[in-house]
């Protein structure tokens, strides 16, 4: 019995193993796959070119992409096309990361956010405005007016991604 009480006594001085969520948050792991983020280039242009490869790769048909033509007066992304509609149904999404793998421009990235809650099915559909990351400092919001002939290449030069 004393051995048992000794265990109890010892654990009084141990650090608690629980985390007081939501006041404190545990950092997510490097390979954690949370809510999607649509990335932008440093100049503010969207990386997504509306190719819909992510929608093709999706095992649960959660992604819907509709593409439109870019013009130099109204430029959203480099190259010819951009995603005018980009919707992800978060109730269908299984966070497998195939969209991330399929993306030729690294536009869609599974981020850190795991706090998703909705009160209706309609709210579970995240549209492009909710998914796009904010414009980086020094960049301009889309659509931009750009000089002709500068953003002709839709897939940028990339090095091998790590992780």
């Amino acid at each position, binding site marked *: 019995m004393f051995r048992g009480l000794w265990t109890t006594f010892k654990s009084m001085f141990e650090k608690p193993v629980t985390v007081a969520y939501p006041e404190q948050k545990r950092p997510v792991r490097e390979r954690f796959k949370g809510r999607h983020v649509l990335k932008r280039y440093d100049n503010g242009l969207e990386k997504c070119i509306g190719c819909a490869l992510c929608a093709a790769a999706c*095992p649960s048909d959660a992604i819907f992409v509709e593409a439109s033509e870019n013009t130099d007066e109204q430029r959203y992304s480099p190259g010819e096309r951009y995603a005018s509609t980009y919707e992800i149904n978060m109730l269908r999404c299984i966070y497998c990361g195939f969209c991330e793998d399929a993306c030729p421009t690294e536009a869609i990235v599974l981020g850190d956010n795991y706090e998703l809650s909705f009160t209706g099915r309609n709210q579970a559909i995240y549209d492009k405005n909710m998914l796009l990351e904010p414009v980086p400092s020094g960049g301009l919001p889309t659509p931009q007016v750009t000089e002709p002939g500068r953003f002709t290449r839709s897939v940028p030069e990339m090095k091998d991604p790590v992780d």
Partner: protein
Amino acid sequence: MEAQTTTGKFVVPIGPQHPALKEPGHFEFTVDGEIVTGASVRLGFVHRGIEKGAEARNWVQNMYMVERVCGICSHVHATAYALGVEQLAGVTAPPRAQAIRELVAELERVHSHMLWLGVAAHEGGFDTLFMYSWRDRETVMDLLEAICGNRVHYSVNLLGGVKYDIDDKLADQLRKGVDFLEGRCEHYMKVVTTDETFVGRTKNVGKMSKEEAYELGSVGPTARASGVDRDIRIDAPYVSYEQFPVKLITDDAGDLQARFVVRIKELYESFRLIREILDHMPEGELTVKVPRRIPAGEAISRVEAPRGELLYFLKSNGTDIPDRVKIRTPSLCNWSSVVNYAVGHKLADMPMLLAGIDPCFSCNDRSVTIHRGGNVQNDWSWEQLRQYGIAYYR
């Protein structure tokens, strides 16, 4: 809760909705006073139609589908499926991928057995052990999260390889976690074998002899606790179990305590294996290319899930969608043994006896055909089912 039947037998029905059950299952115990004289079980309340759903998705999508058969043993389901598809396609995953598959499978076994240890202790009214083992289980969950980013559905497997590599930093993290867990497991072993109240509840309870285990078709640790030397990792080594062999663990006692002992000893074995794999990880590629259309044919793949033998039957017709995916889960095979050894014990022992096989209710999402003999037609065709459904909802 209690029903008096006309034959004078007293039947205690439990479930499908019951405060003591975490998941739906229906049990009927015939009792004589406190002693159980008969038991029956009804399953299938969590039928989700995964096998049928698999026939509407392509091979890659099904990878994710089968992972969701069970939240605890999701990796072995995916491994069994991937091995079957690779067998059909005539490719083999590279050695490094095989080793990582085995590593994650063993980590998953650790996590599953520790979860079970907690649940079983909780059913036995020993909540301290439940809290401790679940606290320590967080260690292995964190390791799994570090490997693949997810706590539950690891999705490490791909058709033809694995997604995630293990680097040196991760390997050190794994070694440290495993060392900690090994120390804790020695403590649990001591508790399970020496604690008086615990031994009183487990020793000589739910005894099953070796012959009975064979006859009732028990699998996994439940069978091994009765002395049956049955382990797919040894009988038919898959992934890299040939390179990193596992030692068979059996116990001849066959009672509830033996099931605890076997599982904790398996934890030691898993820790040893994890270290060995980390020390001798083969170098090389992680994936090979698997064609989108899988050649026509049939394949059977067997793996050892934490609960026992898991069998996948795959049939391909040469397209990118499977013709048939048949899953035989381990929990289903063990129910007959529970129903058998429950007889003669007190009603109060039932929760622990039920927990003793490590029942997984999502495993029970299978259909079973029972041949009663005679001319009873139990099979319904698709059209009959449809007509029945229309009439039912009219």
